[in-house]
């Protein structure tokens, strides 16, 4: 009798606990994967934010980041945006950034802002969205 009761209890526990196991598989959303250029630009943003902090703290940024040269080869979200104009803007940006690492302390702020302004100028011709974010890099 006890055993029957025991089995009964187990059956009850099986039936009462085994609910809601089936869940609908969530529908996948179609998200745009980040292009190589988007990844590079996000990295540039983070690193320029670091340079800005260094300048504000009175430190002198060291070492031009060579991986920025990938700007000439990274795949863009819209490959048709890689125009001769884009090449010119890229060169101006890299030159301005190089200046940041070679200038004296007094000119650091101006050189850095010139770099950021070259980003903004380029984005005004290709991809407007990030401009408000990039503007936050400017040193006032």
């Amino acid at each position: 009798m006890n055993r029957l009761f025991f089995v009964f209890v187990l059956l009850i526990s099986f039936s009462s606990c085994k609910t809601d196991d089936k869940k609908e598989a969530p529908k996948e959303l179609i998200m745009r994967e980040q292009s190589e250029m988007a990844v590079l630009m996000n990295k540039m943003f983070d690193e320029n934010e670091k340079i800005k902090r260094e300048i504000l703290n009175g430190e002198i940024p060291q070492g031009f980041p060579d991986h920025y040269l990938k700007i000439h080869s990274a795949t863009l979200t819209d490959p048709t945006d890689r125009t001769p104009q884009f090449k010119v803007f890229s060169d101006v940006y890299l030159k301005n950034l190089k200046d940041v690492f070679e200038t004296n302390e007094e000119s650091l702020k101006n050189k850095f802002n010139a770099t950021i302004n070259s980003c903004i100028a380029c984005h005004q011709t290709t991809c407007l969205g990030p401009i408000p974010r990039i503007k936050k890099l400017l040193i006032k």
Partner: protein
Amino acid sequence: MNCLLRRVQSYAIKFVFLEKWRAVFILNNYLCFVLKSDIQMKKFMMIMVLSAAMFACKTNKEDKKTDAKETVASNYNSFGDEISEKDYMSSADAYAKYQTLKAGDTIRLKFASSIEEVCSKKGCWMKLPAGETNETIMVRFKDYGFFMPLDSNGKEVIVEGKAFVKEVSVDELKHYAEDAGKSAEEIAKITAPKMELAFEANGVLMKK
């Protein structure tokens, strides 16, 4: 019978405890030992199993509560900051608020609408109808920090963020038309700047 009972008992306890394998083996061995014991001990064993079963069911109920909470939240996909699905106004009310704004003003709003158009390149902006009017509210995302799915046209959304009005240049209008996949003819028709109902969202909920 004893053997069968022990197997049933073993599977039942494994089921009840799932990952708590160590506890399962200890308890199982103990119960097997008890089965061979006197009636008093069998009763004790039954009380233990019953308690375990009740405990397991109670845990499940707690899980269900979490599920229910998730069900409310999981009716939506969340983008950017997590926002609640409560205390929002209609897009018509939001439109009325926009009518009080002049260039340079900013107010915080939370409203519901449905996506009329989303950036087809990246999902980096979306247009929401402003109530029953022909106007749309142009939503961009804070710090370019998150994007919407490319297939989200027509989906219901709740957005929270900053509302403002601004004049958009012809170049910018053409750029957004291009993003939206408009034809060259349609883009050429854009010749005048436009006052835009702009919105910078820090969080979006999109109904599944």
